[in-house]
């Protein structure tokens, strides 16, 4: 089993979700994160002082898939999250030693096909 992690623009979330669904990937987890990268944040200005808020609000996706799905999932994300402007984000994959579905107790790729 692999865990795919993608850090994407908040504004591309809907598109990425749709792309994953079109690849029959309906299960994933996401949360809001903050990132430093090429893209710089808008300045905050308050009472005459300007400051660089620094980070950019982003969404991080975590998708656990069996080997067979890695390519499809990555392709879908790379496509849908892409704008070509600085700040599109990154996508990584790592190996899992074990996966269990808490409800069914099934492990490995069965854990997510149940």
């Amino acid at each position, binding site marked *: 089993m692999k865990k795919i992690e993608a850090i994407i623009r908040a504004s591309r979330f809907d598109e990425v979700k749709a792309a994953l669904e079109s690849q029959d990937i309906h299960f994933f987890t996401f949360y809001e994160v903050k990132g430093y990268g090429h893209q710089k944040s808008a300045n905050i*200005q308050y*009472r005459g*002082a300007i400051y660089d808020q620094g980070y950019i609000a982003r969404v991080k996706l975590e998708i656990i898939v069996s080997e067979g799905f890695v390519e499809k999932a990555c392709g879908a994300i790379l496509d849908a999250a892409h704008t070509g402007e600085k700040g599109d984000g990154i996508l990584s994959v790592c190996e899992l030693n074990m996966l269990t579905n808490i409800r069914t107790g099934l492990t490995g790729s069965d854990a997510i096909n149940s």
Partner: protein
Amino acid sequence: MENANIDAANQALNAVSEVGFTVSNIWILIATAMVFVMHLGFASLEAGFVRQKNVVNILFKNIMIVAIGLLSYYIIGFNLMYPGGEPGGFFGFAGFGLSMPDGAAGLIDYAGGAYGYHTDFIFQAMFAATCCTIVSGAVAERIKLMPFLIFCLLFVTLSYPITGMWKWGQGWLDQLGFYDLAGSTLVHSVGGWGALAGIILLGPRSGKYTDKGIKPIPGHSMPLATIGVLLLWFGWFGFNAGSVLSADPGAVSLVFMTTAMAAAAGALGAFVTSTLMFRNYDLSMALNGILGGLVGITASADGVTGTEAILIGLICGVLIPLAVTFFDRLKLDDPVGATSVHLVCGIWGTIAVALFGNYGDGVGTMQAQLIGIAAIGAFTFTFAFAVFGLLKLLMGIRVSREEEFSGLDIHEHHVKAYS
């Protein structure tokens, strides 16, 4: 028979005075309730302008200020400020607690048919606490609770009534021709001077002034701050128009009009100036502009025309972003802009009395106004500096670095504002 007629007519005249008294009195009580709303306004504004981690603390302080202010004014303050005796004096004390004269003397005869004794007390008591609320915003996010409450107790029990007496208690400034309708100086500058003393002795919030420049520390809730300012504006109608101290139709309606126009002009002045200075539509500046306009018109609301009120307010609005930047350059950290709003615009409003309207001759009035500003400023600043200084020596006035980082709410109150 003749006499009967005269009696009937006199009876009617008496009845009229009584109704007139009833109207004036009820108006000042309603104005009292409106001034009370200013405490809610300050609480909201200041809570909105601090960070989330210090919200409970600022709310707690503002609640307790109202309570302490009302109680101490009842016990001591009122009789220090309106001692009755020796006009032209510097100090007087008419004993502890309230002592309402019996019968008509405490009612229709108390203030020439305008309001009764209890009305006088409660209206003035609502004012009194205001000066501390002004301080509370400026010293927010780093002052310890207990020393602050002790400061407030002394400030509202001694300092405010003594300088208040100089003018409103028929003291020496009043004799001199100093004019201040509702307290541009007597209330707002007084609060501003107290705030200034506090922030000098406290130092800025850590992280505000860095090597790389000023790091803004945005308030945690703009809606709360906006609600606060609009509630203050509402209350200010009572503050200024109640200070007419009767329901006199000409004066009260003039004050309503000038108060509203100055506030509106303050918003406009701050909007334009801050947009030009910062190339940004800064809500916090527009809000401070409204308050600045209100503080500025407070001294002269009953004697200027609408156009003059607009001018006074406009200048307040322009002053706000300049003053905020100025204090920041001096590294005097004031999270809510209390010094800019209440001190700077308070001084300007007191001077405006001599420039606009029809208060005595120009030069004489200007002299009186400047003397009043200086004398009250000197007394109040010295008092506040001494008290804060003493408290600093005796018990410390600033929370620890760690407390500041994690917030006063969790350290002093063991709760969070939001959960």
